[in-house]
């Protein structure tokens, strides 16, 4: 019981990270109908910028945990958002109106470029960091097994919820959010109503990248180890989460992320850590076969 509760906490905090990345996939898919295959690597860039920011802060003598984390987040969001904008400019916009697979291929190309760029500029070795935030609270005790909720997990859950709340307000309440939804439903019509659709698409990539930067920072803090290749696995898992939740559905992406996080954690806890990735990918296969529209995805029914 206590063990399961602990796994639940672990799973949720991991799932939140996947959910944040998944939102980026599902947003871009919603607006241009394509998967951004460079998104996982944008997440990786986010983690690296956070790492560099942390090292600079430590050099500069900022040792206070909360301040350091806040500054890391800001730096990572700002720089990674720029990468998101660049991905759209380089891999997608020049190919708009081209055949459907073209931007997909250019995005995969850009993903390889980003990985190699980080590998060359930062080195291929894994980068460890010391824990910025230690300790936690004991929520529950059963015999000698104490269920811990670490400060780090609280931070992840809190930050992710805050980012998602801000994002939800943006999409549902602001002119930009309205423009995004309009572009998603009918881009040509959106333009006829005076919406700058290119700008809206750019901003969608920027916002997706900003959320991925938050995820990257949380990933760095949680695991304390990153390398240039983390974007691939995290990216594919977040993509799985987006598909499981229903690609194009924003709440679905978060739900899918939580489920993938929980499945992976419980699988590792009760079956085998070695096969945790297999569990996640089996979900992708099963979803695609039996539930192609995902849990919260909509059936494509359009009235003519």
């Amino acid at each position: 019981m206590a063990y399961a509760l602990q796994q639940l906490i672990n799973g949720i905090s991991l799932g939140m990270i996947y959910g944040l990345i998944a939102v980026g996939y599902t947003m871009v898919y919603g607006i241009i109908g394509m998967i951004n295959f460079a998104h996982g690597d944008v997440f990786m860039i986010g983690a690296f910028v956070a790492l560099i920011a942390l090292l600079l802060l430590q050099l500069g003598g900022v040792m206070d945990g909360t301040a350091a984390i806040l500054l890391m987040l800001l730096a990572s969001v700002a720089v990674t958002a720029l990468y998101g904008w660049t991905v759209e400019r380089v891999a997608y916009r020049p190919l708009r109106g081209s055949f459907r697979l073209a931007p997909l291929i250019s995005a995969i190309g850009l993903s390889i470029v980003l990985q190699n760029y980080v590998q060359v500029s930062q080195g291929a070795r894994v980068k460890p960091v010391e824990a910025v935030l230690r300790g936690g609270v004991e929520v529950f005790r059963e015999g000698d097994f104490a269920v811990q909720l670490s400060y780090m997990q609280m931070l992840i859950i809190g930050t992710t919820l805050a980012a998602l709340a801000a994002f939800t307000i943006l999409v549902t309440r602001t002119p930009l959010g309205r423009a995004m939804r309009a572009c998603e439903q009918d881009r040509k019509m959106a333009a006829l109503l005076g919406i700058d659709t290119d700008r809206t698409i750019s901003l969608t990539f920027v916002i997706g990248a900003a959320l991925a930067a938050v995820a990257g920072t949380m990933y760095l803090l949680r695991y304390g180890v990153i390398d240039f290749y983390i974007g691939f696995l995290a990216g594919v898992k977040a993509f799985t989460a987006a598909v499981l939740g229903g690609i194009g559905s924003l709440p679905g992406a978060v739900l899918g992320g939580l489920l993938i996080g929980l499945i992976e954690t419980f699988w590792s806890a009760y079956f085998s850590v070695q096969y945790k990735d297999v569990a996640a990918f089996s979900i992708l296969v099963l979803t695609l076969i039996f539930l192609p529209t995902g849990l919260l995805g909509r059936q494509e029914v359009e009235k003519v």
Partner: protein
Amino acid sequence: MSAEQSPLLELDAVSAGYGPVQALSAVSIRVMPGEIVTLIGANGAGKSTLLMTICGDPKPRSGRVLLAGTDIAGLPTHAIMRQGLAQSPEGRRVFPRMTIRENLLMGAETLAEGGDRSAQLDQVFTLFPRLRERLAQRAGTLSGGEQQMLAIGRALMSRPRLLLLDEPSLGLAPLVVRQIFGAIRDLNGKTGLTVLLVEQNANLALRLAHRGYVLVNGRIAMEGTGAELLARPEVRDAYLGGGAPLPPPLPADGPNPA
């Protein structure tokens, strides 16, 4: 119409098309302020392309598109639409997963942020009372006629100088068509709204409009007042295959003053 007025919209030898297809060849038309001008023609004559070309999608390959004297050809669509144009496009294109209210508000997107939209909403509801009853309903669940009303209402939300209407009668019951055409005439009469109307239902369109153009294979084949064109045997033979009883034509002496 008075000779000293300058046109609100003027197409000067505009050619346009999609890819290898040349849909419009050296088309010249003028729309004076306060006029209802219709463009009739068979399927595939280039009517919708003409409206879309005015809106910059596709961009004209040659020629000029003058809005109140300024050349807008070559500007991006969103920039053109911010100059007082609104279009209710072919196929209606309402946002299916937005509510009626959200759809209407999208129409006012070009206006200053945070302004009061209640006057425009009221105007739309006066024209189409049915929309008021369904404000919170998703547009995808509306009937074809209601979607058409919504598309026109949405176009009116931006208080346009020039309203472009593409086939508002397409696929609708005659009663609904009459209602919509009546609304267009009301708007023109009461507010002096200038309208460029594309229609396949030539009979109806020519009775409504002050002037008309006939588009054949991407070229202007004829022009004249609604009454003149209605009387032409070529027009009768090609485009008027009888029809439902209709309201009488507008007086030929020009647009009503605002």
